[in-house]
C-alpha cells in the first residue's frame, strides 16, 4: 500500500461541492505535484488530509493506518508535516523556538521538571536544541537561529516554515505553494532545498504549485485539479500538453 493514500474523497461546504471523488497514491520517496487554477480546491485537499476539515465522504490512509477524521495534532503525530500558502509563522518567536515547538509531542518533562530544571529537562532541551540546529544547518539558516522571524527576509521565513514542518519528523511533507511571491533567486534556492530534503531525508513530498517550471523540475507526477475534480494526471510533460489542462489555464498567466 502507498505511504499516503486517499480514496473517493468528497467534501461539501454547505451546498457547494468543493472536492469531488478525489484520489491520491503517494509512494515513499515520490514527489508529486497538484496544480490548478485559483479556487480549484487545492488547499482544501490539504486541509482535508491534515484534518483541519473532516471530509464529507472518503478515506485517508497514512502508512496503512486510517487517519480520516482524526484531530490535526494526532495526524501530525502520525507523520504528516505541512507548510502554508500564507506563511503561518509566530511573528515574535525566534527561529529556534519555532523548530523546538515542533518537538512538542516528544517533550515529556512535566511542570516540576520545567521549574526546577530536572536532569531530564536538561537532556531533552539539549537533544531538541541540537536536532533543531541540525535542521537549520541543513536548510542553511542556522545563522538566524536566535532572530525573531518577523525580522527575516521572505525567503528565509519560507525555509523556517520548512524546518518547522521537518522537525515534526514527518514521513510525508505537504507544501502549499512554497514559492508564492518569491524572486527568481529565491525560487532557485527553494528548488535546491526541496531536492536536498527529499534526498537527505527520503521523504515523500506533495506540492501545490502555480509555477509550472517549478513543477516540471521537481515532480515525477502531476495532478491537475479544476473545480474540485482531477481532470488530468500523469508525468509533467504529458500534463502540460493535455487539452483539459490547457483549457483550464487558458487566459491564466501560467507561463511564468
Amino acid at each position, binding site marked *: 500500500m502507498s505511504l499516503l493514500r486517499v480514496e473517493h474523497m468528497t467534501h461539501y461546504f454547505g451546498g457547494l461541492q468543493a472536492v469531488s471523488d478525489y484520489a491520491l497514491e503517494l509512494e515513499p520517496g515520490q514527489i508529486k505535484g497538484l496544480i490548478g487554477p485559483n479556487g480549484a480546491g487545492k488547499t482544501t485537499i490539504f486541509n482535508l488530509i491534515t484534518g483541519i476539515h473532516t471530509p464529507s465522504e472518503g478515506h485517508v490512509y497514512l502508512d496503512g493506518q486510517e487517519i480520516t477524521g482524526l484531530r490535526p495534532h494526532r495526524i501530525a503525530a502520525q507523520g504528516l508535516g505541512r507548510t502554508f500558502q500564507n506563511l503561518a509563522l509566530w511573528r515574535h518567536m525566534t527561529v529556534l523556538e519555532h523548530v523546538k515547538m*515542533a518537538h512538542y509531542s516528544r517533550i515529556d518533562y512535566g511542570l516540576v521538571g520545567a521549574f526546577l530544571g530536572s536532569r531530564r529537562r536538561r537532556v531533552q532541551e539539549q537533544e531538541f536544541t541540537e536536532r533543531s540546529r541540525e535542521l537549520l544547518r541543513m536548510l542553511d539558516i542556522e545563522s538566524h537561529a536566535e532572530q525573531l522571524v518577523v525580522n527575516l527576509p521572505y525567503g528565509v521565513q519560507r525555509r523556517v516554515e520548512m524546518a518547522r514542518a521537518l522537525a515534526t519528523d514527518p514521513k510525508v511533507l505537504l507544501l502549499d505553494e512554497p514559492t508564492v511571491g518569491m524572486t527568481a533567486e529565491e525560487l532557485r534556492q527553494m528548488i535546491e532545498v526541496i531536492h536536498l530534503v527529499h534526498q537527505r531525508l527520503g521523504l515523500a513530498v506533495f506540492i501545490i504549485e502555480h509555477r509550472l517550471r517549478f513543477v516540471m523540475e521537481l515532480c515525477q507526477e502531476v495532478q491537475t485539479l479544476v473545480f474540485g475534480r482531477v481532470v488530468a494526471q500523469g508525468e509533467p510533460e504529458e500534463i502540460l500538453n493535455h487539452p483539459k489542462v490547457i483549457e483550464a489555464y487558458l487566459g491564466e498567466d501560467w507561463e511564468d
Partner: protein
Amino acid sequence: MTYFLQNLVNALQWGSFYALIALGYSMVYSILMLFNFAHGDIFMVGAYIGFGVASALVAFNSLGLVVLPGWLLLVLTILVSMLLTSFVGMLVERIGYRPLRDAPRASAAITGLMIGIILETGNLALLGAQRVRLPTMIQSVTYDLGGVFITNKKIMIVLVSLGLMLTLHQFVRRTKWGMAMRAMAYDYAVVPLMGVPLNKIAAMTFAIGSALAAAAGILYGVAYPVLDPYMGIVFGWKAFVAAILGGRGSIMGACLAGFLLGFIEIFVTMVFPSTLRDLIAYGIIMLILVFRPHGFFGEAYSARLRL
C-alpha cells in the same frame, strides 16, 4: 510625603486585584481571540469557593480535628480554591465556548455575559441574598514606618500577587504548554499541526486564568471580608479595561496596566472627592487609549483567526 507613600501602598494592593484578574482576560484573548466576559464572575465564584473552603478549615480547626496556624489555613484556602475554581473555568470553556469556537465572535461574547448572569443568580439561588463574610484567618498587625501605616495583610497581598505573576511568567517561558500558548497567540491554525492538542491548551488557559481570579478573590476577601454575588461585575469590567490597556494578549502589559489602574484610582481620590473617582480615573484611561489604541504592549496589527 507620608500621605503619598501611604496611598502608594494602598494603590499597590488595589492594583494587585486588577492585575490578577486582567491576566485571565488577556491569556484567553491571546490564544482564542475571545473576551471571556464571565471572568469577573469567576473572580466572584473564586471568592465564594474561598469562603467555603476557609469556613470548613476554620471549623475543623476549632473542633480540634486539625490544628494549624492561621497563615497555613490561608495558604491552604488559596491553593484549594485556586484548584477548584480552575475546574469551574474549564467547565465554562467546555460548555460555553468550545462549541462556539467557529461561531461569530459576537455569539461568544454574549455567551460570556450569559454565563456571568448564570453564575451570579446561581449563587443567589444557592446561598440566598445575604452577604457572607470570609472568616478571619490571620490577625491584622499594623507596622508604623515613619508615619506610613502598613498592615501585614497588605504586604502579604502584594507579595502573593507578585509571586503568582512571576510563576505565570516562568510557566509561559519554561514549559511546553506555555510555549504552545505563546505560539497560539500569533497563529492559532498551525499549532495543532505541530502535534499540539488545541483543546487541552485552551482548557489549560481557562484553568490558569480562573485560578488567578480565585486567588484575587480570596486576597480581596482578606482585605475586604464581605462578599456578595455581584462583586465581580465592576471588578470584572475594570480588569477588562486593564487587559485592553496593557495590550491585548500581553501578560506583562496586563500586570502593569492592572497596577496602573490601581494607582490612578487611588491617586485621584487623593486630590478629588471619592465620589468622582471613577469618573476622573476612567476619563484619564480613555485619553491614554486615544493616544495608544493598542495599549502598552499591543501590536499594531490585527491577528486573524482562521480554522
